[in-house]
């Protein structure tokens, strides 16, 4: 059952792997933006996560430790952003862009000695029983742990935002920080934590690229994944499950166009390469075309406590 030499089972299996880094970064950024902060440094936090995760995984020969340190590195980098933006009231857009540049620079420096090495990678889980189901087992249930962790995070974020008091307070802070402050909520502290969560998720996403997808270190290897994650957050209308759809759509088209290139379809490579970006954005624009839904009303606005 191959079409143009492409096996749909393998296609879906590999799209989940291909989409995981973007999904992780996007769900983290969703939380950050829900708290009312726009962090454009996703790309920078991802690549720092990628290099730190790679270095620790190579040195400890344990990819799990690599992921943990990558998350910590992403969160640490994001505290720079949080301090500048929340405490020193710097401009969010400029600071976020700066964070990306810093991340790209630091990662190139740290990663230099590690170029050309192969890292230990995560084993696929092959979930018992489920993985033996014909077709679906192969497609959905024989991935590495991080694929499931990423979906779990999406579920947790959705549940927290929708059903818990912590989620309600987070949304309230993003919706109207003056009102939240007047009611006695600690706007700065809540946003700081949200930014750190976003940093940790971006770090995980970056490490997934350098430890599972590729798996080795090359300078600038995130190649714009952070930017597409940012776009997905907006076009998914800040809704966690839509973020998953967006990320998988992008991952799917990326894999598909690679397969099409390999199959030698008579479309110029450049068009195929740009297609994931174009199609994902087009689809999400259509989904979110019914107006400006769900944008947190205080998004990107600096907060000054008036006393």
């Amino acid at each position, binding site marked *: 059952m191959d079409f143009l030499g492409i096996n749909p089972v393998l296609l879906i299996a590999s799209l989940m792997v291909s989409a995981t880094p973007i999904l992780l970064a996007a769900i983290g950024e969703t939380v950050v933006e829900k708290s009312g902060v726009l962090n454009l440094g996703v790309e920078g936090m991802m690549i720092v996560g990628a290099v730190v995760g790679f270095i620790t995984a190579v040195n400890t020969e344990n990819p799990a430790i690599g992921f943990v340190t990558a998350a910590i590195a992403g969160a640490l980098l994001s505290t720079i952003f949080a301090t500048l933006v929340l405490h020193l009231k710097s401009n969010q857009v400029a600071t976020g862009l700066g964070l990306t540049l810093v991340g790209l620079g630091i990662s190139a420096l740290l990663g230099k000695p590690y170029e050309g090495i192969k890292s230990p990678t995560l084993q696929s889980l092959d979930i018992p029983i489920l993985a033996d189901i014909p077709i679906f087992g192969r497609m959905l249930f024989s991935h590495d742990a991080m694929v499931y962790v990423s979906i779990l995070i999406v579920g947790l974020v959705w549940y927290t935002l929708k059903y818990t008091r912590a989620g*309600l307070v987070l949304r309230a802070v993003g*919706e*109207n920080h*003056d*009102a939240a402050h007047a*009611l*006695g909520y600690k706007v700065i502290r809540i946003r700081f934590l949200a930014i750190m969560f976003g940093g940790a998720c971006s770090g995980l996403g970056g490490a997934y690229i350098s430890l599972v997808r590729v798996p080795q270190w090359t300078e600038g290897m995130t190649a714009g994944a952070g930017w597409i994650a940012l776009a997905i957050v907006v076009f998914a209308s800040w809704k966690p499950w839509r973020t998953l759809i967006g990320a998988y759509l992008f991952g799917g088209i990326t894999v598909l166009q690679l397969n099409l290139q390999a199959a030698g379809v008579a479309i110029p490579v450049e068009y195929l390469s740009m297609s994931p970006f174009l199609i994902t954005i087009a689809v999400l624009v259509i989904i979110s075309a019914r107006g*400006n839904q769900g944008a947190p*009303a205080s998004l990107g606005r600096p907060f000054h406590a008036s*006393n």
Partner: protein
Amino acid sequence: MKDILLDINGLTKAYPGVVANNNVSFQILCGEVHALLGENGAGKSTLVKMIYGLVKPDSGSMTFQDQQFMPASPNAARGTGVAMVFQHFSLFDALSVAENIALGMDDAPKSRDLAKNIRQVSNAYGLPLEPNRIVGTLSAGERQRVEIIRCLLQNPKLLIMDEPTSVLTPQEVEVLFKTLRQLKSEGTSILYISHKLEEIRALCDTATILRHGEKVDTCIPATTTAREMAEMMVGASFANPIKANREMGDTILSLKNVSASSAEAFGTSLQGISLDLKEGEILGIGGVAGNGQDELLATLSGEMTVASDMIILDGQAIGKQGPTARRKIGLLSAPEERLGHAAAPAMSLRENTVITAAERKSLLNNGFIDWTAADQYTQDIIADFDVRTLGTHTPAGSLSGGNLQKFVVGREVLQNPKVFVVNQPTWGVDAAAAASIRQKLLDLADNGAGVIVISQDLDELLEISNRFCAINEGRLSKIVPTATLEMDQIGLMMGGATAEQEGADA
């Protein structure tokens, strides 16, 4: 003698360059409605913020039921039994009523129980609310109910209300007062901040008056006239505007069945608005905020264009003309939002003058700005309208609300308009400045201009306008002479009784 609930003793709070409160002391008794009166900037909001734990006083002390009371945060104040209904910005538009209420409670119950509580309490106090509605879709009156219910669910001993009636229709005010009297009879004390003196006379037991951050007087509102209270607030007597009997001229402006959809996402579309305005006439348009006032002003100023023959000025169809063209032929306007709409905050007064007065005052010289002339005209405005400012180079944003409003109105009035349209001419302006702005509008009409005043302050409209109508959901009520108008009728008009319906009832 009733027991003292809250004893405020010598509270002082200074900000860089200004003392917001200086040694303020007074007492609130149990089960009393206590009014806090003062002009804008008199220090009312700083004082209540200290009681509610949002601001820390520099010195002074408070006792609440004979216990030392110095809340470090609103949570602490709520814990002691102080609740506050804010004038602005304390609701979350995108969240539901129940979520908004849960956010204001320290130990919110499960959402199903909370919804039940909300229904119960809101019905008990005659303020019905549906817990699952999104707050952004509620009217101003309903939004205020959300805030009040949020407070009541915590059984407060002291309820602080900051300008609660500024957005309500007279009927809604009645409902609110009934609720407040019920609370009072149950022993809750209320600290009531307002500048509407007649309301304070109707509701409050005692009034404390602040001026420039200091307590200057107390009075029993029921036995004090509104004028006496106003003079205590201002610290001087001032003249009331005088409505002269003047001759009306010919019709200068006509709107013919104007319909226009709003450019804003949650805006109100105008539906079939018709009116005639005569020379020397002041037409007052009342109504609750958000019923199409901004759109009506935009349609008249030219920011929103309509079919050409929908607007006739002096026999000329101008519906399709933009603001500059309309200014040129004498239709001037001043929108509600002073900062960012009527004036650019970061630009100087002189520059702001050029923005609207360039054409009519010939401030342009072959396309270049004539700064000498602009400066002269700005000085004229400052002198004529008593704008308190350091000079013509002061940024508009650094003026106080009242002074900027005087500047904005003055800039248009001194251009000798044929028709002047103004939205909320005295919003947030102190009593003396408001009186002088109203007098200037009357003078303008005396000199033969047609004036349209859109306002939510009914007393203001009744004081200066010759005819009155209300705008509701983008429709205009019947236009009636002010002299024959009664409060009940105004309430009905604001609630949406249109000309046809009234005809049918009669």
